């Protein structure tokens, strides 16, 4: 009892170009009491595999080929709906990625956690609620004890995910499927939730299939790791062995291309480096414009003093940015790190005056900005640009790449003729590793990484000196992330750019930055050279942030 074995599973989805094989003949087994990590990037088929086990994929469109999923003698692929209902939530439970949408907003948390016991007729409502309170207390959701009638929206993301864990484990199932359960959480919260998950599963002797895109995270948790790539399992081994001695080039790349706190500062290996695919993304040095010489470089390029941004909310005024002082030197990168709600994004926006600061002053090249007229601020817009998190949302879907790149030049009267602007657009595309042939396409024809390159090109049209990168690689797979980070680095070298690099991910920030500022609750609590922040943090919060980062090398005592 309690062994799952997937044999030769095929799952396809019909599309215009025929059937897409999301899962293409994989084998996977989980022995009882074991924690198995299933790792892959987006589109690798890991989530589809996980959802196939309990038959939660809507079918159609999903099509299952030959193969079987064996669960204590039963093939889950051929079970009837009523018999699957008896397995779901009782023998096999599941938790999902987004705690914000996975709990029913119209039902109290207590009822939702208690419900599996009632569904599976283990006990009646009254007893179920008592048991629910017990397990909620165990996972640390204590609010529910005082407020049994509270609804999910009254809880934070971390608390909701704890409640999800309680709900999944209340029936003491044999197997828990966890589909990216901590991806939507902040690192410090993630660390706590993972700890609870692991302890409770060991305690109840539940085996776990832990699906994640993050190898480091899986390394901290799993006994065994399975790596998927394009619908296939490319490598499977004990966690120790896979990190010490990866076999498949993709796995090697995956381990190498994620910036760690210790990685060198210039270049990240990419998947292409390992897989032997050709790349042409080295920016040509002929394109760049050298930094202007007539500037006094002894002063910082950008300086913010006692910057305050206040929002009016229903609960009263909120200090999103609370008396922040910052300064960034010419050609350097300031990394701004903080968890969600720390005010880092608001700070970035207010420096560009996309959000009006309530108080304080910002000096750019020694001049105060913000107080002068629209026209002057507009010329400042030329020198300060921003790259956003979501490359899917940051390009106007109705404009071609050519229109997107030429428009800023028209607005700022850069280039004398149509041809000159076009040539410049082409040069920019080359600089970010795209080509002339992409000029007349629309954004939806590009991948996320390519779109982000286009966004970078657009930001460069006005020849800025300063660029705010707002979580600009956070939505990306590590392999794509490495390419974009490399691009930003090499542009900084060739163009002498200055960056404000905002991210929640300390290891990415560490890779990119010369200086790091740590933000919490609207304040910059610590500020200093990157190495110093990492090696000798003064604040306990910074220490916590560093410790919470899942690292394969630490948990496995590996050295790279």
């Amino acid at each position, binding site marked *: 009892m309690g062994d799952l074995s997937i044999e030769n599973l095929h799952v396809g989805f019909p599309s215009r170009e025929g059937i897409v094989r999301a899962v293409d003949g994989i084998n996977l087994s989980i022995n009882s009491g074991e924690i198995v990590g299933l790792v892959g990037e987006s589109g690798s088929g890991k989530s589809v595999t996980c959802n196939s086990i309990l038959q939660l994929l809507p079918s159609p469109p999903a099509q299952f080929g030959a193969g079987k999923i064996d669960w204590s003698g039963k093939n889950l692929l051929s079970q009837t709906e009523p018999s699957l209902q008896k397995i779901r939530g009782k023998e096999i439970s599941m938790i999902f990625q987004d705690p914000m949408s996975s709990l029913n907003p119209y039902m109290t948390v207590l009822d939702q956690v208690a419900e599996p016991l009632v569904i599976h007729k283990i006990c009646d409502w009254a007893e179920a609620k008592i048991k629910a309170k017990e397990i909620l207390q165990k996972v640390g959701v204590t609010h529910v004890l005082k407020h049994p009638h509270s609804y999910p929206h009254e809880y934070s993301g971390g608390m909701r995910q704890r409640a999800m864990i309680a709900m999944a484990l209340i029936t003491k199932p044999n197997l828990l499927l966890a589909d990216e359960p901590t991806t939507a959480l902040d690192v410090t919260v993630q660390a706590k939730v993972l700890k609870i998950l692991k302890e409770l599963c060991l305690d109840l002797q539940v085996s776990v299939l832990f699906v994640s895109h993050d190898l480091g995270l899986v390394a901290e948790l799993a006994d065994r790791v399975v790596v998927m790539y394009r619908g296939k399992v490319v490598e499977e081994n004990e966690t120790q062995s896979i990190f010490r001695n990866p076999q498949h080039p993709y796995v090697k790349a995956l381990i190498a291309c994620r910036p760690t706190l210790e990685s060198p500062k210039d270049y990240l290996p990419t998947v292409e480096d390992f897989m032997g695919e050709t790349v042409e993304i080295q920016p040509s040095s002929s394109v760049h414009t050298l930094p202007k010489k007539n500037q006094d470089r002894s002063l910082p390029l950008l300086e913010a003093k006692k910057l305050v941004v206040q929002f009016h909310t229903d609960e009263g005024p909120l200090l999103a940015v609370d008396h922040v002082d910052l300064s960034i030197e010419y050609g350097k990168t300031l990394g701004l790190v903080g968890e969600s709600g720390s005010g880092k994004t608001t700070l970035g926006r207010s420096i*560009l005056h*996309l959000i009006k600061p309530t108080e304080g002053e910002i000096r750019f090249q020694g001049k105060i900005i913000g107080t002068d007229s629209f026209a002057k*601020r*507009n010329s400042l*817009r*030329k020198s*300060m*640009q*921003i790259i*956003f*998190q*979501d490359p899917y*949302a*940051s*390009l*106007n*879907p*109705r*404009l*071609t790449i050519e*229109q997107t790149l030429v*428009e*800023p030049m028209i*607005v*700022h009267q850069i280039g004398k003729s149509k041809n000159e602007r076009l040539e410049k657009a082409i040069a920019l595309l080359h600089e970010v590793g795209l080509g002339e042939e992409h000029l007349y396409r*629309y954004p*939806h*024809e590009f991948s996320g990484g390519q779109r982000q390159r286009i*966004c970078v090109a*657009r930001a460069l*049209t*006005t020849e800025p000196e300063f660029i705010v990168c707002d979580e600009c690689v956070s939505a990306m797979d590590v392999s794509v992330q490495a390419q974009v980070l490399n691009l930003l680095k090499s542009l900084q070298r060739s163009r002498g750019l200055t960056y404000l690099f905002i991210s929640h991910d300390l290891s990415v920030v560490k890779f990119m930055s010369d200086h790091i500022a740590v933000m919490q609750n609207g304040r910059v609590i610590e500020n200093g050279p990157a190495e110093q922040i990492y090696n000798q943090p003064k604040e306990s919060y910074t220490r916590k942030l560093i410790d919470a980062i899942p690292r394969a090398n630490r948990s496995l005592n590996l050295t790279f």
Partner: protein
Amino acid sequence: MSTPTSSSLGKDAWDRLLANKMAMASLILLLLISILCMLGPVLSSHSFDQQNLDEVFQSPSFAHPFGTDNLGRDLFARTTYGGRISLMVGLLATLVSLLIGVTYGMVSGYAGGRLDAWMMRFVDVLYSLPFIIFVILLMVLFGRNFLLLFLAIGAVEWLTMARITRAQTLSLKRAEFIEAARALGYSHSRILFRHLLPNLIGPIIIYATLTVPAVMLLEAALSFLGLGVQAPMSSWGSLIQEGAEKMDAAPWLLLFPGSFFCLTLFALNFIGDGLRDALDPKHSKN
């Protein structure tokens, strides 16, 4: 300023619409009805207001394909003539509602904050008023007037348009490409007209198509109450009212204008649904 005449998004949508049989059939039906209404009064040998007391209450025949009414007027001429008026009211009032609604919604959504809250509160209040009361009040104040009729209807129907435009504007405003446009120093009018409006056109077209039948329904209801188009002119609404009164004696008086009216509404609604599926695949049924 060069706007792409056929973006590939637009072409995809067009392909999806062409593949929707119900919508295409409705489109053809609507075209046929429109052509008939354009040409009908010209083709017919009878005029819509020509009375002939020798030929009252005639059932459909070769001379009078739809029969005649109590004054011996040819129903085919009256139905097609009424169709002109109903369709025209539908289109013009939709245009009025489009202009008011889109402007109002875009301003409200783009401005945001307190102005937005007040503007939408106003719409909410108007929304829950039974508008026929408002229209009737206007009629009482200014007398019955054809122009006033569709101005009033247009003024009523803009509410939903404003809401939809505002909701779309709000979500688009937060989209990063709009923020990018601001960061690049584009002017408000450039952002509004080149970046926001083209992305709003999908929902606006969909809703405009659905407003036409709503407007026609309102006009017909007013005409039915005797507050709309006055005799001897006819609209489908007033013809239906006459038909309903004389249904026992001459059921065709209700049948023909009634079915023309319903078929038109049917077609417009299906085209609207088809457009929604074509332009907004996320919310489509499949």
